[in-house]
């Protein structure tokens, strides 16, 4: 459950049965990128998904102590910025100090990338952060703490189905009909 890797092969099998056509490798890469955008956006809005095909859920509330820490950091960042000083640790602009959205510095979500290896296509956090930790390990820790984000909800799967249909599938030739 805590593995922060999103396996896409099963999703693509489902997509192929829904659209009744083979999804080509180049199309899969395009859809993998679109999936990353959807996952990142949803996570930044404060929601996680526990299991593929499930529903999204609000991340657990942050502790009062941690909220205070984030607010202090935000104030320090603003003070340093006004004085033209560099801050060693910067709270990402997309972060509300009071809300959990897995965006402290923003490095983990920015690192999400797809990989094609041995016929498997996956999405996972990559690389090492400023603090020396691997983004993958940070994501795994988040998941162990009940903040799983790198999955696709049922609605998100539908979003990607629609992207496929409009870009490569049956709706491509019928856009003027549905508009």
């Amino acid at each position, binding site marked *: 459950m805590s593995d922060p890797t999103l396996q896409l092969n099963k999703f693509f099998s489902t997509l192929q049965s829904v659209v009744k056509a083979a999804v080509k490798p180049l199309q899969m890469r395009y859809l993998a990128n679109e999936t990353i955008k959807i996952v990142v*956006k949803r996570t930044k809005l404060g929601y996680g998904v526990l299991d593929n095909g499930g529903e*999204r859920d609000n991340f657990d509330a942050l502790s009062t102590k941690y909220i205070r820490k984030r607010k202090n950091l935000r104030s320090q960042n603003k003070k340093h910025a006004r004085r033209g000083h560099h801050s060693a640790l910067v709270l990402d602009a997309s*972060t509300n100090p009071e809300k959990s959205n897995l965006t402290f510095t923003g490095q983990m979500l920015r690192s999400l990338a797809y990989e094609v290896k041995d016929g498997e296509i996956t999405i996972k956090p990559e690389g090492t952060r400023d603090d020396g930790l691997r983004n993958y390990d940070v994501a795994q820790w988040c998941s162990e703490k009940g903040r799983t984000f790198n999955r696709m909800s049922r609605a*998100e799967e539908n979003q990607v189905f629609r992207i496929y249909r409009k870009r490569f599938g049956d709706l491509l030739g019928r856009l003027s009909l*549905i*508009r």
Partner: protein
Amino acid sequence: MTQVEIPIPDNLTKRQRLELADLIVEHIVERTQSGKDRFGKAFPKYSKDYMQSLDFKNAGKTSKVDLQLSGDMLASIKRIRDESGLIEIGVVGEEEGRAEGNILGSYGGEPDKKKARDFLGIQPRKLKELIKYVEEQGV
């Protein structure tokens, strides 16, 4: 409220009804994404507060009103049932509350017609066009 019954010709086959339902759903999504309600009119604008919110920025939104924050609500529109002479389309499940808020203009409060963004439905002219398409396809 979050479901709509659409009368259709009695003589459509099951396959034609399914095809038509799918096209109606896709039309509703396309039209909503273009900023128009079920009557073809522009949705009321977003409030200044909402446009300045972090969620708005995190979702990469612009001032174009398309009822998409995460995209889940529009992705949840589906065919609920079909029978001879009728198709029912709607939003069910966890997005139902959000859909109702938009349709009624309530957004967690009291309904307000001035704020309502009613996206669930199809104009007769468009429906006729889709029915004609489905009939001509020989599905």
